[in-house]
């Protein structure tokens, strides 16, 4: 974290605190930074926020790893088989334009008010991005890698594992990243709308209790998780690929 950024965020928090203390708005509409921090610490201490984080992370990990596996397999198939690309490929492109939370009404009909419904919505957020990016990666694969791999004896599954997948991986990472952010947004939206437990539900509870401190505290936690995943995981993977492949930063 560099100095400029530190100063910026320090000033922002200061401004927030000052504006809240000036008393233009009542605290249940505009809570101060200090009261939000207190709520956050209390929530961490009594475990309510921790529980929300654990439940939401468990859901996203489940849905996301499922999406990654299915999306990769589907993307490989679409990228290699022309007939599939023309048919399923265009379907995937079309469906991807639909914000995945729009699947919720259907999911409720199919799965009821259940864990499966929210997982379904989350999967629909991620899986198509991953599929489409994998397909693009396979399609842009230089044929010479395939020829080189085949002359060196790679065939069948080994050709996929040792040549096609690693060659397509830089493309896939952008899809995996986009898939993650779609999945995370869908999950939060889904949790807001109905499901018990999870961060989204904590947000709604804050609203119902008129506890703006809790609402803002949970929002900060959601931002925090997003930043950690983006900077801590995806940015690192991208950096690694860039240095390995010698791509420009």
């Amino acid at each position: 974290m560099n100095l400029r950024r530190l100063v910026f965020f320090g000033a922002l928090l200061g401004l927030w605190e000052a504006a809240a203390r000036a008393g233009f708005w009542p605290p249940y509409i505009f809570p101060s930074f200090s009261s939000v921090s207190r709520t956050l610490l209390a929530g961490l201490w009594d475990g309510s926020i921790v529980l929300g984080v654990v439940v939401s992370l468990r859901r996203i990990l489940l849905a996301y790893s499922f999406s990654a596996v299915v999306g990769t397999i589907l993307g490989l198939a679409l990228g290699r088989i022309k007939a599939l690309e023309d048919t399923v490929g265009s379907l995937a492109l079309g469906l991807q334009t639909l914000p995945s939370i729009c699947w919720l009404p259907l999911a409720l009909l199919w799965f009821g008010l259940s864990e499966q419904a929210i997982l379904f919505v989350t999967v629909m957020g991620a899986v198509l991005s991953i599929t489409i990016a994998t397909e693009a990666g396979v399609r842009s694969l230089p044929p010479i890698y395939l020829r080189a791999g085949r002359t060196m004896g790679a065939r069948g599954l080994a050709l996929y594992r040792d040549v096609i997948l690693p060659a397509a991986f830089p493309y896939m990472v952008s899809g995996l990243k986009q898939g993650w952010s779609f999945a995370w947004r869908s999950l939060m939206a889904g949790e807001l709308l109905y499901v018990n437990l999870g961060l989204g539900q904590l947000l709604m509870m804050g609203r119902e209790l008129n506890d703006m401190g809790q609402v803002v505290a949970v929002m900060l936690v959601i931002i925090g998780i997003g930043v950690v995943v983006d900077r801590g995981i995806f940015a690192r993977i991208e950096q690694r690929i860039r240095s390995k492949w010698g791509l420009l930063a």
Partner: protein
Amino acid sequence: MVERRRPVKLVLRNVSKAFAGRNGSVTALEDVSLEVRQGEFVCLVGPSGCGKSTLLNLIAGLERPSRGEILMDGRPVTGPAPERMVLFQESALFPWLNVVHNVEFGLKQKGVPARVRREIALYYLEMVHLRKFAGAYVHELSGGMKQRVALARALAADPDVLLMDEPFAALDAQTRDILHAELQEIWAATRKTVVFITHNVREAVCLGDRVVVLTYRPGRVKAHCEVALPRPRQIEDEGLLAVVAEVTASLRGEVMKALNEELNERVEGHEPAKAGVLRRAVGALGSGR
């Protein structure tokens, strides 16, 4: 000079290859017959568009001939196999692997245990003088180093035949000279059978036991020139000149055909005025300068 007694390694018998093009099918190769003996270094030269690379892909098993057959050790070639390794013009090294893992790739596919394949890979990296770069990534290497790694990668799979598709065409002259020397040294040490494609006649004469001239579209075998000169040879050796002249004479007509045809394709319908000028220029070239 290859002794005539050496067994025949590769046989191409009346091989033709046609591709579906925009205006019907295009015959890339027609009725090509060729024998390569074990341990022989054969160079194929021809104008661009004569189907040299197609021929190599056919031998590699990456493509199937439309007619005719290709035999290795008397058995028909049905697909790619590590006994026939290809060196491409671009190195085709895998950017997601470091140098030593690239060299190990073929061995890994064969299921060679990790320790053994590391040892073999390092041995061949040593042979191309790049052992120090075992841990480097591909983008950190120069063009010449990449081709040396590609050579080590091909040799590590212990093929019987090395198929080289203009592997040095993209390199600067100095690097190419060094690699010519290294390749001859390695060939002398390993005695692989080599089929080497180039459009550079001097390179072909410098490296080959025999130079085979291909005609322009469709590619056919036009001439064989034996190169009975002592090795190691260098590209500027005076002794090469006689053979170079012989090959060049045989090739010139084909290059003219290629240029003319390209000209017609490019110019027709577009700029008829320019076409005349270019044709005269090509004609002047064809008359031997």
